[in-house]
């Protein structure tokens, strides 16, 4: 059974690269352009991991994470922030909210994939 990942980001070019890389690793990839789309998808899908941008219109990454943590059935879903915000205080805040990892942009696609794989083993 293939693993599932949800990529949440409002930049289509970035999403495209990530989608290609994870599909190559046999992930089933879901895409959302912001927090509210992501939460819609999460109503019927239980991905193994969520890659989450923070600065997005409407429902931002922080709010989305909080929602995920409060949703029954998503206890085993790993959540990884992937964002341009790289200040120490931002990272601390993200981890405090319960993110499993905090990765920053710009990134190496290979590294992101290997981080997620590591997290899921």
């Amino acid at each position: 059974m293939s693993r599932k990942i949800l990529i949440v980001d409002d930049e289509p070019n970035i999403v495209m690269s990530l989608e290609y890389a994870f599909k190559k690793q046999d992930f089933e990839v879901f895409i959302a352009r912001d927090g509210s789309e992501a939460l819609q998808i999460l109503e019927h899908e239980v991905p193994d991991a969520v890659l989450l941008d923070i600065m997005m219109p409407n429902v931002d990454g922080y709010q989305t994470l909080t929602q995920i943590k409060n949703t029954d059935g998503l206890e085993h879903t790993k959540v990884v922030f992937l964002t341009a915000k790289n200040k120490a205080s931002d990272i601390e805040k993200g981890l405090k909210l319960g993110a499993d990892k905090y990765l920053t942009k710009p990134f190496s696609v290979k590294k992101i994939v290997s981080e997620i794989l590591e997290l899921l083993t």
Partner: protein
Amino acid sequence: MNNYTLVIIIIFYLAVLFYIAFLAEKKRQSKWVNNPYVYTLSLAVYCSAWTYYGSIGIAANSGIDFLPIYLGPIIAAPLWILLLRKIIRISKQHKISSIADFISLRYGNHRFLGALVTLICLFGTLPYISLQLKAVSETFEIMADETSYISTTILDDSTFYVALLLAIFATFFGTQNTDASEKHKGIIASVAFESILKLVFFLVIGVYITFYLFDGTTDIYEQISSAENFEALTSLEGVEDGFNWFFMIALSFMAIFLLPRQFQVSVLENNREKHLKKAIWLFPLYLLLFNVFVIFIAWAGKLTFGTSANPEYYTLLLPLSQGNSFLATLVFLGGFSAVISMVIVSTLALSTMVSNNLIIPYGFLDKFIKNQPERNFKYIKNIRRISIFTIIIVAYFFYVSFSKELSLYAIGLISFVIISQLAPSFFIGLFWNRGSSKAAIIGMISGFAVAFYTLVLPFTLQAYTGTDDFVQYGLNGITALKPYALFGIDFLSPPAHAFFWSITVNVLCYLVFSLTSKGHYRERNYAEMFVDSRNFTTLQDSALVWKGEAYVADIKNVLVKFLGEKRANRALHIFFTKYKLSPDTQMADARLINFSEKLLTGSIGSASAKILIASVVKEEQISLVEVLKILEESKENIVNNKVLLEKSNELSQLSSKLKDANEELISKDRQKDEFLDTVAHELKTPITGIRAATELLMDDDDDMPKEMKTQFLKNILQDSDRLGRLINNILDFEKLETGRLNLDIQRHDLQKTIKKALSSITQIAVNKGIKLKNKNPHAFKLNYDEDRILQVLTNLLSNAIKFCEIQKGKIIVDYKLGNGYVEVSVSDNGKGIPDEDHDYIFDKFYQSKHQNTIKPQGSGLGLAITKQIIEKHKGKIWAKKDVKKGATLVFTLPFK
């Protein structure tokens, strides 16, 4: 005039007074009762029968010597603002109900001192009241037909009944309240009314005599100046007379403060301090008016009757001699008014003193403490009622047995000299905190003794024995002890002489014993409160230094006995609220002790209040030094608190300024931080895209489909363009914001510029199926930087395209001329700008929350840059509100 007619007139007149007093009591809050005129007129209780009749007697016998008695008060009046105000404040604060209370409180609630003051006042006032009764009786006899009729028993004497009626009046309106510090508005209103009557009637008779019976003032003057010893009557004779005048003026100066009836009306019945301001000129004016005709009436009488009639009653005898009994009746009523007001106010004042400073503290306290409150009220009122009756009746008997032989003027001066014995402890005590109770008592007793020896005794002996041996030869024939010429001072008139010696001895004793005695701490405490009254008013109940153990419940019990359950509870409630104490506080502190004493003072006097409160508390002795230290600290605290408050106000102002400045800085800092953060974020986004796509292409192991490769390459191109645009925008924006961008202003045709802008975006619009319309085809030339305005228009147009629906969109560019400016608008039929966003769309990196469908590709700086450019052209830019569909952005450019 018939005896009975006169009695009926008197009774009718008294009924009118009753009615006035009754009305005033009923409408206690009315403006008619509470105004400076009523206050001033009530002060005129000073003008008793002595003024009304006696002055003329003096004027006839010794010329202008009647004047000093009015000059004293006239000199005192301007000082009232300082002196009387201070006295009024202290009295109100401590609920003082008489001058005895005032003095006894100043010396630490001293019981004996209060009693002594009461006795001196009684001694000084009783003859004075009897003088009034004498005037009533004698004028009555003059008015009545049957001048031959001489009363043989009390019951036949009309004066006795008049005295009784006055007592009833005073009892009825004087003892309505147990708390004697409450105002007696009824009595005061009737006194004011009487003051008007007596002045008006006196002026009427003055005019009548001067201008009707005689031919004006000059006529009288010319006639009398041909008489013998005229010079002596109209001028001061040498230094001796000067001294006499000086002492008489000083004497009346003191009397206006110290006479119990004056203290009553000027201090206790004062409603508002500001009434003093009117009184200080109106009262002297009243006195002046009263004295205008005195000398002429006296001379007219002299010219008419020679030495055959009593000059004191010229005002009655002159109209009667002309058969004008109507005018005579008016004069009689005026005199009667003077008598009534004096007698009633004096007995009221004296009865309060007798009950609160003599009877209650010396015998009734034990009884009170066991009684029910209702019974106590009754007791206190009854003591006062009996006092009023007793005082008036004693005065009547005094009149029957002494005064018949004496002149009004002589009795009046005796009273003044006796009352003046209160002066040193009263006046000096107000300004000198070392003045002690022991010294006050010794001073008063010795002063009184001297006055008795030099004035009362010779007077009485002369009246009784009919010889003046005592005056001629002195005690046991020692010339140095001659009562009218003590130690050889023989040039003063007997009252001036008595005043000089008694007050000198009194003051010396007071000063010497004050300096040598140590003084009790409580006494010193009150001394400080009186002397430094302004500071201590702010201290309020904390002004009393007190240490010891006391229970609120015990104190409440005492209060209930005198105030009743309801008032006591209310008072305590007020106290607890005022000092923010819990209502079930158990232990009483100094403030409660002081507060309770004040509450009781009005009902039973300050000395009794102290004794009663002391009976339920356990007071610790404090040393004088400690008291002074605590007082000093309290005063300093007040000053310090004031300074502290000012400082803290300054500080808080300063700190709020600092806070504002700091917030501004922080907000600027934050804005800068946010700007940088956003710039970084915006830059990172395309870089991330480029980096990811490049990495995937590089690692390509040839299984990537061709169209995928092309897509990634396209993405890289797109992101690179975005990056370049962004960098340009940032640089533009930075230049504009720091003002380093210079405009290249030339004359251009706006229509042409709009066309250029439209053509640059036509391709994009066509691709999206959006229609563009250039509405105003006319050329219009003005000065602007074309490149920048093109940038503005392109920005607005591409924004419009961004928000328009594909295939349905329509964008209209229009311009019109205003007054000195051209107004350009770009309208679209897109989704519009939400109302709450209108104020923010021109902020840098502002992106509407509602841009959720497709992320519009922009730097977030476009509108911010647009705004800067327009403002640089001295124009304005805004989003039009209340647009039905889509958005309309408008900017203006001024032309000269």
